[in-house]
C-alpha cells in the first residue's frame, strides 16, 4: 500500500521501518547527489572505499543468507541424505514438493497438519497481541498517570528475555497442578492438562453448543479431504496445548508492539484531539476518527511483523512440545527442521522451508490487499470499486 507519509518526528525507527519498502529514505539520499561537488577523482576514491566499507557485510550476508537459499533450492530438488556433499546428490525434479503437496501419504498429512496448526496460531495471536498492545499503549498514554515507567518496563521485560527461559517458566505454570490451574480452581474451573491435551478447541466449542458430535462427525466433513486431511480435522481449531503456546506468544510480544503504539501515540499532537473535542466529538468519536486513523501506519507495521513472526514459530515448539501432543503443535518451521535433522530427509525438509516462505509471502500480499481496500480512497475510486464489483 502507498504509505501515508508518516509524521517525521520521534519514533524514527518505528515509522521509518513502516515505510521500509517505500521510497522516503532512498529518495532523500538521491536528492543529495546533485548537491555534491562531483570531482572525478573523489568519485574514484569513494568507489574503492565504498566497496571496502560494505565488503564485510556483503560477504557475511552473501555467505549465510544468499548462498544458503541457493543451496537449499538445490537440495529441495535433490535426494540428498545428509551424508557427503549435497553437490553430488541426484536431481529428482519436484519429487519432494509433489510428496508434500499432491501425493497422499504421511508427508502430505504432516504438512497439512502443521499448516492447520500454525494457521489457528496466527489467527489468534495476531489479533490478540495487537489488541493487547494497543490497549496497554492507550492506557499508558493517558496524561497525568504516575508510574508509567514502571508499567512500561513490566510489560516490555518479557520481550527482552530469551524464549528458552520463558518457555521453561510456562511449562511450569501450565503443569496439571500448576499456577494456571490453581488459579482456575479459584473460579471453580477444573483446568486441563495443558501441554498434553490434544483436543481441538473448536471441536470442543461446537460440541459444547450441540452443533457437533465428536463421536459421530458428519459424513461430509470426514469424507472430504484437503491436502490429505479431512475437513473435520481442518476444523479442529487449536489444540489445548497450542492455546498455551498462543498465550505465551501474546504475553511475550504484546510488550514489544505496545512500545510501537506508544511511540506513535506520542506523535499525535494534543491540539488535534482538543480540536475534535471543541468541535463536539465525544472521546469515543475522537478515538475512532482521529486517533485510530493516525495509528494506521503503526497498525500496518504491527500486523505485518505479527504475520511474519507467527508463521515462524519454532523455538517454543522445539523446546516445549516437540510437536506433540498428537502432532497438534507441529508447525511448518518445526516440521522442516524435524524432517531434515531427525528424519534425514533433507530434500523434503528444504522443500518445506520454501513452502513456508511461499506462505509468508502470500499472507503478506493478502494483508496488503485487505488493508488497502479498507482505506477510504477518493470518491472516484470508491465509485469505481462499487462499479467494478457489480
Amino acid at each position: 500500500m502507498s504509505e501515508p507519509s508518516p509524521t517525521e518526528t520521534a519514533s524514527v525507527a518505528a515509522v521509518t521501518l513502516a515505510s521500509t519498502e517505500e521510497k522516503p529514505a532512498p529518495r532523500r539520499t538521491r536528492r543529495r547527489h546533485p548537491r555534491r561537488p562531483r570531482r572525478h577523482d573523489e568519485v574514484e576514491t569513494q568507489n574503492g572505499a565504498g566497496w571496502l566499507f560494505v565488503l564485510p557485510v556483503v560477504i557475511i550476508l552473501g555467505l549465510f543468507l544468499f548462498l544458503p537459499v541457493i543451496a537449499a533450492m538445490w537440495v529441495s530438488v535433490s535426494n540428498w541424505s545428509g551424508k557427503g556433499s549435497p553437490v553430488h546428490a541426484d536431481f529428482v525434479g519436484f519429487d519432494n514438493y509433489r510428496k508434500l503437496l499432491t501425493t497422499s501419504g504421511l508427508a502430505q498429512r504432516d504438512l497439512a497438519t502443521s499448516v492447520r496448526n500454525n494457521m489457528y496460531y496466527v489467527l489468534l495471536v495476531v489479533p490478540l497481541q495487537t489488541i493487547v498492545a494497543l490497549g496497554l499503549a492507550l492506557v499508558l498514554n493517558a496524561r497525568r498517570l504516575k508510574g508509567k515507567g514502571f508499567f512500561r518496563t513490566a510489560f516490555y521485560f518479557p520481550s527482552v528475555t530469551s524464549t528458552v527461559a520463558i518457555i521453561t517458566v510456562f511449562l511450569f505454570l501450565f503443569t496439571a497442578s500448576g499456577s494456571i490451574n490453581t488459579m482456575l480452581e479459584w473460579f471453580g474451573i477444573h483446568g486441563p492438562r495443558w501441554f498434553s491435551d490434544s483436543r481441538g478447541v473448536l471441536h470442543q466449542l461446537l460440541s459444547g453448543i450441540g452443533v457437533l458430535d465428536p463421536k459421530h462427525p458428519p459424513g461430509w466433513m470426514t469424507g472430504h479431504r484437503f491436502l490429505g486431511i479431512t475437513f473435520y480435522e481442518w476444523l479442529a481449531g487449536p489444540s489445548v496445548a497450542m492455546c498455551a503456546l498462543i498465550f505465551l506468544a501474546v504475553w511475550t510480544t504484546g510488550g514489544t508492539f505496545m512500545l510501537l503504539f506508544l511511540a506513535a501515540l506520542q506523535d499525535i499532537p494534543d491540539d488535534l484531539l482538543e480540536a475534535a473535542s471543541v468541535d463536539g466529538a465525544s472521546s469515543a468519536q475522537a478515538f475512532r476518527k482521529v486517533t485510530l486513523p493516525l495509528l494506521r501506519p503503526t497498525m500496518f507495521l504491527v500486523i505485518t511483523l505479527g504475520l511474519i513472526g507467527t508463521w515462524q514459530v519454532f523455538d517454543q515448539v522445539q523446546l516445549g512440545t516437540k510437536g506433540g501432543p498428537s502432532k497438534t503443535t507441529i508447525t511448518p518451521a518445526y516440521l522442516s527442521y524435524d524432517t531434515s535433522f531427525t528424519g534425514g530427509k533433507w530434500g523434503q525438509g528444504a522443500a518445506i522451508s520454501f513452502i513456508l516462505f511461499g506462505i509468508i509471502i502470500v499472507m503478506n500480499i493478502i494483508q496488503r490487499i485487505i488493508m488497502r481496500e479498507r482505506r477510504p480512497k477518493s470518491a472516484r475510486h470508491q465509485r469505481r470499486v462499487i462499479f467494478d464489483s457489480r
Partner: protein
Amino acid sequence: MSTVPANTAATEPVTGPDAPIEGGRRMPPMLKRALAYAVLVVFACFYIFPFLIEIGTAFKTDPDATANAMNPIPKTWTTDAFRRLADANFDRWFANSVIVALFVTAGRLFFDSLAGYALARLHFRGRKAIGAAVIAVMAVPGVVLLIPKYLVLVQLHMYDHYAGMIIPLMADAAGVFIMRQFFISIPVEIEEAARIDGAGTFRVFWSVVLPMARPALITLTILSFQGSWNEYAHFLVATQSPDLKTLTTGVGGLVSGQLSAGNQFPIKLAAATLMTIPVAAVFFIFQRYFIRGATAGAVKG
C-alpha cells in the same frame, strides 16, 4: 474452558482503554484514572508474577515446587538446584554465551556501522543495489534459513566450531539499516571540513563520524548483545558437541529432555533465572536505549 486465559487477555485491554475514553464526558476524571490504574495493575500482575514464580521456585525443593505451584516463597530455602546446575556444565554454557555475545556484538558494531556509513554517505557504483538488497534481506524469514544455513556451515567446515556460531551472526541487515538512518540524519558539513583538512575516508569515519554516533552505537550494542545472548535456533543447527553449548541450547536441552518427565522444575527454573540476569542487568541499565532500539529490532520478527 481452555480459552479462558486467552479470553481475559483479549477482553481486558479492550474494556480498559475504551472505558476511560468512552466515559470521557460522563465519568469524573478521578474514576477514569482509577480505572486506568486498575487495568495497569491487573496486567502488571500478569506480567510480573511468572518471574516471581521463576525465581522463587529456583530455591525450592522438588516436592515443594510441585505441591505449592502458586506460592513463590519456598517453604524451606535451598540452593540445591544451583549446585546441581554446576554439575550439569552450566558454567561452560555461560562462558560460551559470553564469548559468542562479545564477538558478535563487536563484529556487528564495526561491520554494521562501516556498511551503514558507506550506504549513507559514500558514492560508489552499486550502492543503490546493495542498499536495496540489505532491506530485502531483512524480509527473509530467519526460520526458513535454518536448514540452508546448516548446509553451508558444513560445506565451509565451520559446523560445530565457534567460527560457525559467531561469523554468521557478525553482521545483520537491521543493524546496517539503523546505522545508515543515523548517519543520514547528521550534518555532512563536519565530515567535509575534516576531508578538506586531508583526512582519508576511513579516518573521517573512525575519528569524526563514529564518535558522533554514540547513541546509535549504544542502541546497536544492546540489540546485538540481547540478540546473540538469546539466540537459540542458530546454535541448535550450528553445533552438536556438548562443549559448544551456550546457555540457550544447554538450558534448552535441560528443559526439553535430559531431565525427562520428572518434575525437576527447581533446577530448570534456576537455570532460566541465571540466564536471564545478564540481559536483565543490561536492560535496566540501558533501558532508555533499549526502548528506542526495540522499535527497530522488532523488524526481525
